[in-house]
């Protein structure tokens, strides 16, 4: 781990292992865990489109996911019941696979994102994860009480004159951007495993909201650490190992 070649990817992933389980708790609170897969696929498609257009993939991924997150509310009435996430997922997957199949340039990056490789992360990715992640955590902390109140007492929330849309749209945009960042660095399924499984266990076993957040965080970090070491020692792709580890842990704890 002292080798800098692995230290930067390790720290990049560690930042995401802190961020994603906490984000996942709020997505689960809102019954929007499917959003993780949707935004990840949209980010992958955006990154590949940017690559083909000669732009930085990171910018393409963030822009596509950000647009999807911000634009989702415009179609909220027609796309209720999670339909928006299913359509975004299918659309993102279709575009990404078609680009990877037809553009040699996109094929390699596409494989990395779908296979879940963390080892391509450099210092630029590390900084982007720590700066955006830190900011994201701060915003989540500010939104936390409002998101909980809007979920438990939606009518009380409205009669107190609290406006729901800045909180909901702000959270949608935040989730989209953070998931895009995670997808670019950790791959679609690696990010999804960290967004879905630790919060699922925390919701089942947490004694209260605060302890649930800590539990999700701890499960995320420990699983990440174990998967990273295992992937290095066994020379295997990181994403599938992380997912298998979390699934095993999930079956034991749940």
């Amino acid at each position, binding site marked *: 781990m002292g080798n800098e070649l692995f230290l930067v990817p390790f720290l990049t992933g560690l930042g995401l292992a802190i961020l994603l389980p906490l984000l996942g708790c709020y997505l689960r*609170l809102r019954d929007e865990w499917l959003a993780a897969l949707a935004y990840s696929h949209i980010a992958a498609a955006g990154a590949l489109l940017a690559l083909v257009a000669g732009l930085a993939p990171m910018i393409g991924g963030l822009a596509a996911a950000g647009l999807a997150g911000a634009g989702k509310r415009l179609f909220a009435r027609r796309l209720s019941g999670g339909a928006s996430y299913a359509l975004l997922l299918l659309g993102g997957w279709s575009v990404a696979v078609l680009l990877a199949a037809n553009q040699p340039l996109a094929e390699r990056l596409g494989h990395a994102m779908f296979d879940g490789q963390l080892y391509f992360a450099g210092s630029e990715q590390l900084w982007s994860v720590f700066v955006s992640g830190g900011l994201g955590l701060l915003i989540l902390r500010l939104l936390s*009480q409002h998101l*909980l*109140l809007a*979920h*438990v*007492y939606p*009518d*009380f929330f*409205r*009669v*107190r004159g609290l406006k729901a849309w800045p909180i909901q749209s702000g959270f949608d945009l935040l989730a989209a951007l953070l998931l895009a960042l995670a997808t670019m660095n950790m791959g679609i399924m690696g990010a999804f495993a960290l967004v879905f499984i630790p919060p699922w266990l*925390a*919701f*089942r*076993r*947490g*004694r*209260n*909201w*605060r*302890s*649930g957040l800590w539990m999700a965080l701890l499960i995320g970090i420990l699983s990440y650490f174990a998967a990273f070491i295992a992937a290095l020692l066994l020379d295997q792709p990181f994403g599938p190992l992380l997912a298998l580890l979390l699934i095993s842990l999930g079956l034991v704890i749940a």
Partner: protein
Amino acid sequence: MNCLLRAENLIAGWQSAATEAVDLVLAAGEIVGLTGPNGVGKSTLLAAFAGRAQIFSGSIELRRGLRLALQTQDIPPVVGLPLSGRELLALTTAGAGGLPPWLSERLDLRLDRLSGGQRHYLALWAILQAPADLILLDEPTNNLDAAGVGHLTAHLRERAEAGAGIVVVSHDAAFVEAVCDRVVVLGGGNGQ
């Protein structure tokens, strides 16, 4: 009289009018009951006072700067959510002082580990104890046993004596009689 709410010839509804014309004045420190048969529009009136339902004719005036609290019949979706009673109260900045012992000793449990009645009363308490001048309650005695109804009755009187105005929609005739200063019966022509 310190008037909190004044409704004149109010007809409210959602897509179409759902109530008869109602006149109602509520002063600070007063508890008014709204009763009547199912479908007469009691909950719709409450929703109109809270600014949620549509006004088809007449008017509603609320005192400027009024802080509202609204309890609806919807059950807070807390099953499967790791949220404790204490955290629920913190969401609405409600205090735990005055809770009955059978609830105060369970405040640190997850809400989905409480019985239906305990959960309902705690969810109701979080609204009742939230800082508010006007409290609107829709069937607050649902799921409550006799001890819960007794405690609620005493607490509503305390809230009113402290200056809050309260409108209660309820089918529970004994509760309405015990807690309300006045009762408006809907369904027999002009509600008054």
